[in-house]
């Protein structure tokens, strides 16, 4: 006698029969009938007509029957809200039952009935149950608050359930604590702004205590909650880590992975010199490896997470290569993931083993896997230089097998190897050419054509080979067509005599017979290049190529950091931030790794930065007798070297002579003309860097009547110092000269200060002094401090000023994308500095173009749920690269908040780069 009999009734008047049975007096018959109803419900039959009859069975002391009726209610209450009300009384009564099991069951079921009218009645019983003496009821009620919040959030807030729930975090029973945490986390997820889980060291301590005592599922909730906490310093982080590590030995893999998440996150705060840091690294490896011996489903999720962990901290698993070796009967999804991690872990130390394995895989049955294995060999060659030769010979062996897809895949990767190690392995080209005919996939054909074109001079019959491809030109995919066009042009440039016909043929095919705009455009460009200036064509087409980077498909560093915070979740399986795929538009909180604490001196926090105003507005006058200025005092400040004391214009002019305008366009010369010149300088700034308004550097009272104000500009590669000299004394000033002290970036005047006419009292002259950066270098404090001495016929005056760093950003500061990724990864995390720029009046586009005009170049751009991320690079005159990541989040309609992360090998410049950003963006 089994339950399957319930599925077999298919008679017509079934409902009637059930109705009669449900109303039977016999308990046993009733129960059987309810079971039949449930079975029908399961297979999708509509038994909602029986609603009143089933609800009538609710008042029973038989727990099994009660449960079954509740099950039915949960299913149909939504469609029969009016009738569901009938059940309310029983619920309320059950909530007061002496048996805690029944109280809990009632409050739990009521939470699952998503009918507004019922929820009103739910509040009172729920309030009682939250304070019930029995912990079983309390923990059930905690979950019920979360359910109710989903139905009617306002109600929950009004009734003060959230506060009761927060109180439950301090409950004496660990299970109640765990459920309260779970409920709060869920509610917090839908209300990211509400500060529900306000974690502080005390509550953390309670959670950690509960962690040891609650069930495995409760441990997961608590660990996930802990991961959202940011400890105040490294000591606190360490003590939490110490208490979490025992979870790594738990039998439940979800507990293990959640513990790994907490540790990976908090590790970020620990200094690498700490002994504990090393201990922790060692402790992380075994549990991760153990996850791989579980069921394949668990393995898969574990592998996806390990992939992230390996990218963030390769040192954890560097000795565990072997556990990622593929077994032939692993499911394919596990195999592919393992392969990916093997490549990430490949290093000089283990490359021999890895290669032997990969070669083995290349003979497996599964085509996808074989392809990936072949590709992996190529990636190893590129990653581990010492192994390149062996990889190439392995690939050649594989080509000898003549298995079609193996050969094609091998050719694709060999192309990349050629790119990485030019002029090293070209001897294999002959072997490759033998397999030309078997290539039928576009990618392989394109790769082969690229090789032929690139090495046309070494392949005797290159023209024949390419010609053979040309026959079916229009049937090829765009990829192949483009490659063929370029290859033939390359061939023509290398062997112009024999291939003229061929190149004409391909150009006409590309430009006249093709309707693909890309192909046509490229065709026209080549055509024009070749017809107007073959030499230039050669320079363009045969230009030296930049090296390709070692690691491909690395996850962007910020995304990686974010994903590390999501270890163990769906996001970590998809390698996307949750906002990118979770439906429902719930607010999403961005998580980020905690910054290293202040004890490691790497970054200055933005708060400690000087008020944030553009530095050039804060003149700093050096006392004339400063001992520090020894260097300056010894300066030889002779008369200006240009021997034109009268100026070109002569002394006749009343107003300052217009003819004395220096070659520099940006400077305006006199008050009369200033409007006009302002216009030009305004236009000028569009193409040059931002120019701060002039500020007074040397007040008249400190310099015997000479007032100097000025600013710095950078235009088209040249830096200049725009000065305005005003004579506020009663005597004429002549014989001006200027000199700089040694400074951090070697700024020095590129020409003498030329004031062409004596400066009469109350007269003002504007001068643009060209600067270069070849002067002597001495590190200044602050870094951008510039000490200047100005001399005239009266005396020598000293002042110091801070120049904005962006005048040092050079025009070729745009980094290649790959290079950017690699460099970003390469620069240690301690060198990263983060800053906030609030209320910037620009959107992402405008930010990008404004920065570009100051030589801060956007390398890549990404949009993550409405937030723009800009990846930028800039180079200083002394060759220091600074990489930046700019997260732009709209704060209100017309303003945006920017989050700036800077990475640089010389971290001390970060602060100044940040100031430059702020100056450029806010003005």
């Amino acid at each position, binding site marked *: 006698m*089994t339950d*399957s009999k*319930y*599925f077999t009734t298919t008679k017509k008047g079934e409902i009637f029969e059930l109705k009669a049975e449900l109303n039977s007096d016999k308990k046993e018959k009733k129960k059987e009938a309810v079971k039949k109803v*449930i*079975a029908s419900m*399961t*297979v*999708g039959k509509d038994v909602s007509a029986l609603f009143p009859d089933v609800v009538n069975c609710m008042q029973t002391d038989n*727990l*099994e029957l009660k*449960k*079954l009726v509740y099950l039915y209610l949960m299913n149909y209450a939504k469609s029969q809200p009016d009738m569901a009300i009938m059940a309310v009384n029983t619920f309320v009564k059950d909530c007061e039952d002496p*048996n*805690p*099991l029944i109280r809990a069951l009632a409050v739990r079921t009521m*939470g699952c009935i998503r009918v507004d009218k019922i929820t009103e009645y739910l509040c009172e019983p729920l309030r009682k149950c939250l304070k019930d003496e029995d912990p*079983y009821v309390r*923990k059930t009620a905690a*979950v019920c608050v*979360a359910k109710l919040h*989903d139905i009617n959030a306002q109600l929950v807030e009004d009734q003060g359930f959230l506060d009761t729930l927060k109180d439950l975090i301090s409950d004496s029973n660990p299970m109640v604590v765990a*459920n309260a945490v779970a409920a709060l986390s*869920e509610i917090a*997820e*839908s209300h990211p702004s509400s500060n529900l889980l306000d974690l502080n060291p005390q509550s953390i301590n309670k959670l950690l205590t509960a962690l040891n005592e609650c*069930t*495995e*599922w409760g441990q997961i909730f608590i660990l*996930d909650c802990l991961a959202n906490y940011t400890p105040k310093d490294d000591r606190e982080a360490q003590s939490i880590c110490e208490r979490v590590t*025992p979870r790594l*030995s*738990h039998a439940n*893999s*979800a507990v*293990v*992975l*959640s513990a790994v998440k907490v540790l990976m996150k908090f590790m970020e705060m620990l200094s690498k010199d700490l002994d504990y840091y090393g201990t922790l690294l060692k402790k992380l490896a*075994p549990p991760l490896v*153990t996850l791989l*011996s579980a069921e394949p489903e*668990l393995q898969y*999720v574990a592998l996806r997470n390990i992939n992230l962990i390996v990218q963030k901290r390769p040192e954890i698993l560097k000795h565990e290569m*072997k556990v990622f*070796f593929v*077994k*032939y009967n692993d499911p394919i*999804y596990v195999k592919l993931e393992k392969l990916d991690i093997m490549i990430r872990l490949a290093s000089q130390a283990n490359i021999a083993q890895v290669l*032997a394995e990969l070669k*083995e895989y290349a*003979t*497996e*049955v599964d085509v996808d896997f074989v392809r990936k294995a072949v590709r992996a060999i190529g990636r190893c060659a590129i990653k581990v230089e010492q192994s390149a030769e062996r990889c190439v010979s392995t690939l050649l062996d594989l080509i000898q097998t003549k298995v079609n897809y193996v050969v094609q895949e091998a050719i694709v990767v060999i192309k990349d190897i050629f790119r990485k190690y030019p002029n090293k392995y070209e001897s294999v080209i002959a072997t490759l050419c033998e397999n030309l005919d078997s290539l039928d996939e576009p990618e392989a054909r394109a790769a082969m054509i690229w090789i032929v074109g690139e090495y046309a001079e070494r392949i005797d019959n290159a023209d024949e080979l390419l010609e053979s491809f040309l026959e079916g030109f229009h049937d090829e995919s765009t990829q192949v067509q483009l490659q063929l066009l370029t290859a033939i042009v390359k061939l023509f440039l290398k062997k112009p005599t024999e291939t003229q016909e061929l190149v004409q043929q391909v150009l006409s095919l590309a430009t006249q017979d093709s309707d693909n705009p890309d192909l046509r455009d490229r065709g026209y460009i080549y055509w024009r290049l070749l017809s107007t200036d073959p030499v230039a064509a050669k320079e363009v087409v045969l230009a030296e190529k930049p090296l390709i980077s070692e690691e491909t498909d690395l996850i962007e560093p910020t995304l990686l950091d974010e994903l590390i915070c*999501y270890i163990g*979740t*769906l996001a970590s399986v*998809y390698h996307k931030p949750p906002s990118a*795929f*979770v439906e*429902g538009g719930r607010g999403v909180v961005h998580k980020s790794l905690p910054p290293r604490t202040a004890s490691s001196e790497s970054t200055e926090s933005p708060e400690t930065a000087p008020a944030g105003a553009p530095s050039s507005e804060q003149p700093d006058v050096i006392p004339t007798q400063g001992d520090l200025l020894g260097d300056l005092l010894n300066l030889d400040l002779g008369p200006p070297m240009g021997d034109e004391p009268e100026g070109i214009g002569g002394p006749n002019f009343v107003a300052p002579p217009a003819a004395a305008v220096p070659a520099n366009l940006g400077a305006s010369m006199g008050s009369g003309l200033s409007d006009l010149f302002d216009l030009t300088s305004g236009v000028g700034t569009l193409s040059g860097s931002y120019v701060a308004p002039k500020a007074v550097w040397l007040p008249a009272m400190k310099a015997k009547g000479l007032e100097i104000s000025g600013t710095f500009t950078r235009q088209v590669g040249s830096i200049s110092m725009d000065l305005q000299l005003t004579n506020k004394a009663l005597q004429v000033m002549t014989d001006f000269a200027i000199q700089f002290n040694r400074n951090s970036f070697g700024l020095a005047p590129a020409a003498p200060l030329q004031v062409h006419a004596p400066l009469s009292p109350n007269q003002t002259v504007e001068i643009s002094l060209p600067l270069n950066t070849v002067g002597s270098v001495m590190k200044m404090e602050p870094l951008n401090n510039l000490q200047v001495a100005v001399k005239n016929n009266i005396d020598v005056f000293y002042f110091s000023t801070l120049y904005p760093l962006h005048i040092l950003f050079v025009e070729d500061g745009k980094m290649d994308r790959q290079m950017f990724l690699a460099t970003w990864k390469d620069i240690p995390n301690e060198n990263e500095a983060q800053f906030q720029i609030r209320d910037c009046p620009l959107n992402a586009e405008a930010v990008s173009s404004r920065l570009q005009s100051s030589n801060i170049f956007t390398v890549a751009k990404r949009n993550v749920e409405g937030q723009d991320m800009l990846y930028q690079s800039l180079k200083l005159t002394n060759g220091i690269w600074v990489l930046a990541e700019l997260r732009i989040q709209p704060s209100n309609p017309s303003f945006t908040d920017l989050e700036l992360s800077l990475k640089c090998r010389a971290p001390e410049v970060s602060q100044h780069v940040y100031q430059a950003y702020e100056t450029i963006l806010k003005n």
Partner: protein
Amino acid sequence: MNPFWKVFLSSLEFIFMQRNSQEKAADVENVPPVISTPHHYLISIHRDRLFFVSVIQTEVPPLFVIEFLHRVADTFQDYFGECSEAAIKDNVVIVYELLEEMLDNGFPLATESNILKELIKPPTILRSVVNSITGSSNVGDTLPTGQLSNIPWRRAGVKYTNNEAYFDVVEEIDAIIDKSGSTVFAEIQGVIDACIKLSGMPDLSLSFMNPRLLDDVSFHPCIRFKRWESERVLSFIPPDGNFRLISYRVSSQNLVAIPVYVKHSISFKENSSCGRFDITIGPKQNMGKTIEGITVTVHMPKVVLNMNLTPTQGSYTFDPVTKVLTWDVGKITPQKLPSLKGLVNLQSGAPKPEENPSLNIQFKIQQLAISGLKVNRLDMYGEKYKPFKGVKYVTKAGKFQVRT
């Protein structure tokens, strides 16, 4: 829809998924565990030809779901003796009741078998007869005792006339051996399964002769971690019945002995429709114990039509549809090593197969834990009676593969 995630385990879905899977029977194993659909995510596990699927709408830890699904499957196995479509259909009401107890709104409730059995009695023929006569139900109406105590895994009031505690130390060797016979990768996955039938609240401690072997261990929640950290002793109040006490991994290469070797030569001739097949199995590092229960399975390449082989012992079968060769060897007698040789018939005209089949080997060694792990003693505190105690060791092949 449920806000968090919800497990739909209706028979309907089982049948639906099964039908789907039968269409491409070969690929069942390869269904990825996390699948995205336009509105939901499906997380599934595959056990005993059944898919257990959960439907998810928001961000959630997939391992959490997968672990839970495995726990559900374990529970069904435990209750119904098998986890099959028929068993689930036959017990659909209990399945419902169980799921109700195990999960509330996406929050797991009771997943310990000890607690569940107090809430819902497992079906037995006797009980269903009794129930139908007396009208009583198989749902307990009191709160399970362990549910909220600090030892949720054990129920109170356990009573046995014979008090017994048995431990099985089971070690599986996972290994990949390359063509030349050298070990590419080897590790031991060990578990200690316990069967404890002790009255009252016994407090046990189990110590080992060589606990240093255990450096990568996962514990049952009942084990006191601090005690292990400081003294290397497993101290615990056990759940009642069968459970897995610890699982461990021994990976350092020199500790993993490989008890068998295989000599093999599988060759296919170019341009002819036949090939030769010859394998011999012999003992190696078997610590003086007999190796028994040996089975060799080989997935032959697709072009193999049939195989004509002669075994010196045991019997073999070749399934021409799945191309799986299975050789049931039995045990090795060192005097006469078992071998299997003969001809392979290939599809005529087809090119010689590229891939080399891997040999999958199963074996068993009784009374030996290959890592050398040995239980020292078991002590019981808290109760007065004297229990029967016993430890059994067995070593098996796990994923033991020989490449050719």
